[in-house]
């Protein structure tokens, strides 16, 4: 008795292996474009950190590194649950791992949600005290000029990252729905694997953003 839905490869591929390796390569290329997108922000970060070093360290101290650290732990844990979900799908033979896949995906999504909640508190604090980008900046506590640029880059980097978290959650939710229908087993787990790759990238970007913004 089989409880998995057997996968048929799309008509324009010769085999399921060809389909899988094409999908995986496409995902890797997509991840490269994501890294390049963020690299523009890292360049801007480097330029202005060198242009206004005192302002930079003063402004950076306004960020709460404890909240940043909590979020880092949350995301690393979510990467771990994600990797476990992929493993569960790869070793799923007749549907015996279905509950495990669904549970681990749900855990990953919940951790992503926890990250956003922490981010929400950080953002609302900044809205309140006025450490905001550009012309909306009104925080009186920083002596050095041009602190609005730091917060412009802060909001752009974390905002863009936050959007990626939301997109990642949506993708993983779609994967979860399919996992519940029993679509993934050791012969076919492409969406779990690719969703996982995407999620690891989202984590990785945060692992760079955290020290650069909060600790420097």
């Amino acid at each position, binding site marked *: 008795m089989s409880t998995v839905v057997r996968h048929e490869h799309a008509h324009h591929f010769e085999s399921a292996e060809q389909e899988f390796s094409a999908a995986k390569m496409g995902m890797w290329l997509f991840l490269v474009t994501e890294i*390049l997108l963020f690299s523009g922000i890292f360049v801007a970060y480097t330029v202005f950190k060198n242009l206004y070093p005192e302002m930079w360290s003063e402004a950076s101290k306004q960020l709460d590194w404890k909240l940043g650290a909590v979020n880092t732990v949350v995301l690393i844990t979510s990467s771990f649950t994600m990797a476990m979900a992929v493993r569960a799908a790869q070793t799923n033979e007749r549907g015996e791992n279905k509950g495990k896949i669904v549970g681990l995906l749900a855990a990953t999504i919940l951790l992503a949600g926890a990250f956003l909640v922490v981010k929400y508190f950080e953002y609302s604090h900044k809205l309140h005290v006025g450490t905001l980008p550009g012309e909306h900046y009104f925080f009186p506590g920083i002596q050095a000029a041009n602190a609005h640029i730091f917060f412009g880059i802060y909001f752009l980097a974390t905002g863009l990252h936050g959007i990626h978290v939301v997109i990642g959650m949506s993708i993983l939710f779609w994967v979860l729905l399919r996992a519940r229908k029993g679509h993934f087993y050791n012969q076919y787990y492409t969406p779990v694997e690719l969703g996982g790759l995407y999620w690891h990238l989202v984590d990785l970007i945060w692992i760079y953003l955290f020290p650069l913004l909060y600790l420097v």
Partner: protein
Amino acid sequence: MSASNSDTHAHAHGGNYFEAARGLKSWLITLDHKRIGVMYLFWVIAAFLFGGLLALGVRLELWAPGETIMSADTYNRFFTLHGLVMVFLFIIPGIPAALGNFVLPLQLGAKDVAFPRLNLLSFYIYVVGTCMALYSTIAGGVDTGWTFYTPYSATTGGSVVMMTLSAFILGFSSILTGLNFIVTVHKMRAPGMSWYRMPLLIWALYATSIIQVMATPVLGITLLLLAMERALGIGIFDPALGGDPVLFQHFFWFYSHPAVYIMILPGMGVVSELIATFSRKRIFGYRSIAFSSLAIAIISFLVWGHHMFVSGQSVYAGMIFSFLTFLVAIPSAIKVFNWTATLYQGSISMQTPMIWAFSFLILFTIGGLTGLFLGTLGTDVHLHDTYFVVAHFHYVMMGGTVMAFFGGVHYWWPKIFGRMYNEALAKISAVLVFVGFNVTFFTQFVLGTRGMPRRYYNYLPEFETLHKVSTMGVLIIGLGVTIMVLYLAKSLLSGEKAVANPWGAKTLEWTHAASPPVLHNFDETPVVEEPPYHYPAPGEESRPTKVPA
């Protein structure tokens, strides 16, 4: 992703890809790379005609000094929109997304690109981007020039944010197409189609795709920063707010210099096909042409600073960028020499696509060599921001890419639509465009060396004659293009039916697929047994080239 039933069903009819399914809806939701290519083709030709009308407006305004037909503000919007439409809506998607989409899987012997849904998505993203660009012209227009230089672009009126977001969106379309092509080339080649058996168009599209994937995200973040600069005043590019306007130029050209190779490399690929086919000869230096495409793709990332010789970057940076710019000319020259060597002792047939290929060879060579004038620090200081730059750019982009695009359109037209066009009219049109082009832009080299600045609305009386000549050239181009539109439209309606291989070409789309091809391209997957362009070698005359009747 499972095989859709409607596809299998349609295939059973055995008709060509037009007959496989009917009705508007079958086009709007098609996953067939050929149909997506055709939709792109009509869209980019429409963009070309629109951009051309804008150019006509600019040139008519410059017929005489002072106000001729429009105000200075309108003029600024015209040339900005001309640049944006031609670059982002026509040239960048022109060859890869329209012709490439159609030809690439066929030349590889594949049934489709690797990700057909992504392909359709990239088309719709392109449509959305186009609509946003059009909307921003109605809602205030943009007068920054296509380069969006800060701080002007952060402070001027008009709908700059909408236009930058449009270019941002169009960038995604370009990234997805590039990504799709790279994976297709790696994973979808027919049995026997090794890397060195791939037609040179594939190599060129592959190199282009690498640039699209690697450079476009940087444009994306640049435009996002610019949009934030305008919306929130974040101050990154505005010196009044502590920002650095030259940083914008670095960001912009880090994308936009490689982007000129996104625009020219596919043209080089098309010309390689045309020259091999219409010389009936194996292409000379196959590998060096193939690898020069990759060399261009790599070096193109290292030369962006040659746009900023007078922008206040350091002298040493200028020298290095100047050197690297000379370096990137080498692979382009390698291609030109190899094409010329292919022509040597070939049995050249001057059919319409070949006339376009010759136009390309002549004009691109002039465009490339004048690029070296501009890459040289000393002369660039003199020529910077003059009509010389405008002329150089148009010799490369229009003289190069547009000629190759039209050569490609005329070459693959019988394959795409299954119909021939009026050869005599086509030749007249090609010659008119070539002549008109030189009248328009050669004068601009002269104007530039005499000190006429680009983008100016008004000019000194001594430039009037040359400006008038240049404007007359545009009218000649316009005549040529009008004739082309008419005979191509006639061909669609009542053209003579095309045979499978009217040119006696050697690549798979001609030798193994019908005109137009069936839904899944080939009746059975082709098996490749010889290198591309395998015409008899000189002295091997006993083996005649088969030219189907």
